[in-house]
């Protein structure tokens, strides 16, 4: 459990760093955008109104920077991420929480599919070195090197615009349907999610395949695998032995990859006008809505840290050496 404790410490420190960056960045930038925000929100109103706005955006000029920093923490701990500039009275928290379920559903499902599929294909590629799967690797490298959103644009162009198999945009048919818990709505949502999910899988699967394949090749040369074969175990059992051990680095690689995948998925959402965080992000960029941008950064950071923590638990569960270390 020492590993888990160490990792949790790291995540807590990272979260503190992220929050601190978030607080100081606007105040260190040339021209102090924090004050510019204020200028944008107020339109020459009474001193009381200005004071109220200052309070709302946490940029009170009187409390001094450390006072503001403490204030910022107090706000955050109360779940207050600030107020949107663009959708004015709406809080950043409410904007994010209405977009978050879409992103979590899409990215979560696609990532799990990609990881499982990639790992299995990686095992297959290692087992049959030099087969057609290996020849596919350069093509998969392209999909990995190309930005997610370009893969998304290709997917829209081919499967939605050209072939018309899937809807090209949005999370559900906003014109004809209202969100409800019935089959019609759910199937419509699934129909709209297939293409974005496919894009994320296609763009991220190559990394898992290559990682697993390379690890599997190394593992297959271990003595215990040779022994398992010498004992005459059926092939699928031998593969199972090797794969279980080769899987470990891929699980720890998950922690590294999740940040990239989430970022890529946000861009994918933009191409599909999918009503998730990515879409909120691009709208906020367009209208210089800094509080929302910063809120999104914090939420994504926390989501990534939680995903990392889960990967660590899985790792500890899979690797008895770590469990016994304590």
């Amino acid at each position, binding site marked *: 459990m020492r590993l888990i404790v160490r990792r949790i410490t*790291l995540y807590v*420190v*990272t979260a503190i*760093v992220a929050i601190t*960056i978030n607080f100081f*960045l*606007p105040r260190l930038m040339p021209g102090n*955008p924090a004050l510019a925000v204020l200028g944008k929100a107020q339109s020459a109103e009474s001193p009381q109104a200005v004071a109220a706005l200052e309070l709302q955006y946490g940029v009170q000029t009187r409390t001094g920077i450390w006072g503001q920093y403490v204030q910022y923490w107090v706000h955050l701990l109360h779940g207050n991420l600030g107020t949107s500039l663009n959708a004015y009275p709406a809080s950043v928290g409410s904007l994010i929480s209405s977009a978050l379920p879409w992103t979590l559903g899409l990215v979560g499902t696609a990532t799990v599919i990609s990881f499982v599929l990639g790992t299995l294909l990686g095992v297959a590629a290692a087992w*049959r*070195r*030099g*087969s057609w799967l290996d*020849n596919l690797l*350069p093509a998969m*490298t*392209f*999909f*990995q*090197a*190309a*930005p997610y*959103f*370009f893969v998304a*644009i290709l997917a*829209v*162009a081919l499967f*939605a*615009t*050209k072939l018309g198999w899937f809807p090209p*945009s949005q999370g559900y048919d906003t014109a004809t349907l209202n969100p409800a818990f019935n089959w019609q709505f759910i199937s419509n949502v699934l129909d709209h999610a297939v293409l974005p999910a496919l894009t994320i899988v296609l763009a991220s699967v190559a990394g898992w395949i290559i990682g697993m394949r*390379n690890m599997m*090749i*190394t593992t297959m*040369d271990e*003595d215990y*695998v*040779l022994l398992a*074969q*010498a004992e005459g175990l059926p092939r699928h059992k*031998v593969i199972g032995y090797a794969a279980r051990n080769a899987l470990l680095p891929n699980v720890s690689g998950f*922690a590294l990859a999740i*940040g990239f995948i*989430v*970022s890529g998925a*946000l*861009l994918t959402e*933009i*191409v599909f006008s999918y009503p998730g965080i990515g879409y909120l*992000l*691009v709208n906020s*960029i*367009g209208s*210089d809505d*800094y509080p929302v*941008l910063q809120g999104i*950064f914090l939420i*994504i*950071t926390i989501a*990534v*840290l939680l995903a990392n923590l889960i990967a660590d638990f899985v790792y500890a569960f899979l690797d008895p050496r770590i469990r016994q270390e304590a």
Partner: protein
Amino acid sequence: MQRLLRSPKILTGLFLSVAFAFLAIAGPFLAPYSPDAHASTTIGIAQPPSAAHLLGTTQTQQDVLSQLLVGGRSTVLVSLVAGVVATVLAVGFGVAAGYLGGWADDLLSMLANIFLVLPALPLLIVIFGLLGKGGNPNDLLIGFIIAATGWAFGARQLRAETLSMRRLDYVDSARIIGERSWRIMAFEILPNLVPVVATSFLFTVIYGVGTYTALSFLGVINTSHWSWGTMLYWAQNAQAAQDVHLQWWWFLPPGLAVGLFGTGLALLNFGIDEYVNPRLRAAGLTGRRARRAGLPRRSRLGMTPVLPARAPALPAREAAR
């Protein structure tokens, strides 16, 4: 070195990378039009490729080919700057952490780990968003900022490699002779880390291309500053892929360029990996070559298939089946 140059992966990768480097230098001179010039102000839809516009035009009748050629320089430059700066940081942090050990290692590793788990793209969006979209963006500055978020992966790898090296006899003897720490790191340890440094450099350049393209696609960087990402931004804005008249000539070239540049760098990276770890290389055997060499179709466990130089068949070492 010769072995390195025989690998098809290395060769393809080198070819692609050199081609894109050439494009970055010569592109703006080769562009037939100005990327901003509007060929016509009356036509409102993107025109398909023609003799006058080899890659067609955008919705506002700008020449796609010229944008591609001009935008290449900024894209390649930013990613190279990001790669160089991030690699320097990675070497500094990684080797120092691995060699010095103790509290310096704890501190530097903690820093690297924080940057490793901090999601880079959202952070960069906040930074660039706050910097403001106005003004003429500076490619060098963009490269530096991207590098600041991309050095941690290389640093972690270099630290691990340095750790395994610091207790080697030759390093110990250098220490006993009285060489200074920085000298040992720079002249005794670093030369043995060249493949790792190269991999980490290529990795960060790939990261730089992807990140820069993503940032300009999002429109956080001035959208009149031509790069492949900006081209995709405008194409997406005009719904070039969603339009019933699919404007493939608009979104395909910049996307393919980013993808091919990245693929070239990634292939170089795989080539170096295989050079360092020859076991991975056996996969370079195509089915035909393997059969001709008399290798079993399905590789046996416990042995790495190795092609003999010219011998007709392998000495049959039948591993347990």
